[in-house]
């Protein structure tokens, strides 16, 4: 119910809200709607059709996109898994090993990459691989993705761990659980919602990364974002919109999953 000083009663509130929503979502809506366009034009609506989706899966470029999608998927899964494991261990070390020197510094160092401009990270990663004479290819992409996914996975994981009182692990150890058993039987299950959120966040970040991937990928190796970018350089075809819409769908599903898990967790 609107209270006397409810924000919703200020003049222009509705208009500003709508404007923000339009700016946020109109481009996405346009892409999603025009991916169902029967015409080959990207601006003129000629009726509903699934032809561009068919084109993505069976058309002349389908092999290229399938390879790119496969690469993206494998990299995202592997990077998100590795990053979640590393982030979980890092959070355990930082939050559960008592006070140690440089503890605050460690926390800062883990999250700092979030604030570094991505292009800087991209250049640095490229130089790093060159210095090691690492041949660029899918492995370099994977390593780079694991690295930049760690801070993203770390955020929800450490937030969750901070909310778990130390007394649970102490109770476990009091009941004859070794440190390791207390970790696997008590801490891990309690952290699971955080780990899942961290994994999903890392997965989406990896799936959608363009700048770093473009720097460290070898010739001929494409992920979906780089493949789309390559195609767009030759002009936007409606099949790009179909791919984009599919990617959007994957993201929405992942976010919804994360939200559902979070909600279930709150109820218990």
């Amino acid at each position: 119910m609107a209270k006397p000083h409810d924000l919703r009663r200020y003049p222009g509130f509705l208009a500003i809200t709508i404007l923000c929503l339009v700016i946020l979502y109109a481009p996405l809506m346009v892409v999603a709607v025009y991916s169902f366009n029967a015409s080959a034009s990207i601006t003129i609506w000629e009726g509903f059709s699934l032809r561009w989706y068919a084109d993505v899966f069976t058309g002349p470029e389908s092999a290229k996109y399938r390879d790119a999608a496969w690469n993206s998927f494998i990299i995202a899964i592997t990077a998100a898994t590795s990053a979640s494991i590393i982030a979980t261990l890092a959070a355990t070390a930082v939050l559960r090993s008592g006070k140690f020197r440089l503890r605050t510094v460690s926390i800062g160092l883990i999250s700092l990459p979030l604030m570094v401009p991505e292009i800087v990270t991209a250049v640095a990663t490229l130089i790093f691989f060159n210095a090691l004479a690492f041949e660029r290819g899918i492995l370099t992409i994977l390593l780079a993705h694991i690295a930049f996914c760690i801070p993203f996975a770390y955020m929800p994981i450490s937030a969750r761990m901070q909310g778990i009182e130390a007394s649970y692990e102490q109770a476990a150890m009091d009941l004859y659980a070794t440190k390791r058993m207390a970790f696997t039987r008590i801490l891990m299950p309690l952290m699971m919602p955080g780990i899942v959120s961290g994994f999903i966040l890392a997965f989406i970040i990896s799936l959608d990364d363009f700048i770093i991937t473009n720097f460290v990928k070898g010739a001929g190796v494409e992920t979906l974002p780089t493949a789309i970018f390559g195609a767009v350089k030759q002009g936007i075809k409606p099949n790009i919109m179909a791919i984009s819409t599919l990617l959007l769908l994957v993201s929405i599903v992942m976010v919804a999953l994360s939200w559902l898990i979070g909600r279930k967790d709150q109820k218990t």
Partner: protein
Amino acid sequence: MPQDREIAIDVRDAVKRYGTFAALKRISLTIRDNEFFTLLGPSGCGKTTLLRMIAGFEDVTEGAIYLYGEALDTLPPYKRPVNTVFQNYALFPHMNVLENVGFGLEMLGKSKAEARARAGEALEMVQLSQFASRKPSQLSGGQQQRVALARALAPRPRVLLLDEPLSALDLKLRKSMQVELKHLQRETGITFIFVTHDQEEALTMSDRIAVMSEGELQQLGEAREIYERPRNVFVADFIGDTNLMEVTVDKVSGGRAQCHLGGGHSLTCDAVDGVEAGARVHMSLRPERLFLSAQPAEPGSLPGTVRETIYIGTDIATIVDLEDGPQFTVRSSNSTRGNARVFEPGQNVAVNMETGAARLLAD
């Protein structure tokens, strides 16, 4: 209580420092096997710290703790045959009640079937069998408390540590849990170390009580001993209600001391070691060991005026101003006999004391 019973826990000159702050200042005490032992003291006196040192969550800065003759030293918590009922229960939220209770047994390497069976027995002991498959969050505070108790008892530890387990419960539940706990202790024969800051709880439940304050042991003894023969001002004041006042000793002879208090009132009581004529010492007078009578005062009683009577339920307290002297609180039971000794505010009365009611305190 037999004195030759095996010693369960022996704390020898234990010191605990956090940085420069000493939470425990050289504590020594022994806890006997099969004893209901209580650590009693105000908030921050170091009760939890001592308990955590016994459980193994806190290392001992100086000194040592022995468990059935064995030095605990650096033994990790999971190797100590000691279980804890935590103040906030710390039930595992992702496991149901039965899994919680069976956890310790499982960690001890018992088979799943045996763990389940014995967890079931422990649940029966606290009358919660019907809640076995519930999650802790679906239980009331009192039920959670009993699950925590069953969980700590199920592995049959040699010593059970209880850190203010009843503080979150309402008075009625608390009273019935006190009885139940005492009963469980007798039934299982496990040594209980119970922490509380509630003196009444300590008095009703314990075989022996250690009174602590500011990291130091003030007195150790059975309930009656601590209540009736407090060693110092802190113990007298902390345990029960008392009239605490400073008196001047006039004469000591034959184990009796004659003293006077403000207003020139004089009285005689048992002397304590080291008290000489001329000393100013504290005296404790339990209100229930005093009684009022109409004036004129008999010899040995103290004349005064009733200021106020307070209805407590079981008792009636009367506050009396001594002539030019301190204030006294006198308690009489709310019974026909007790009520005959209650007077109206403004009435002149005499405060009488039973023999041995007045105690001089070392400090």
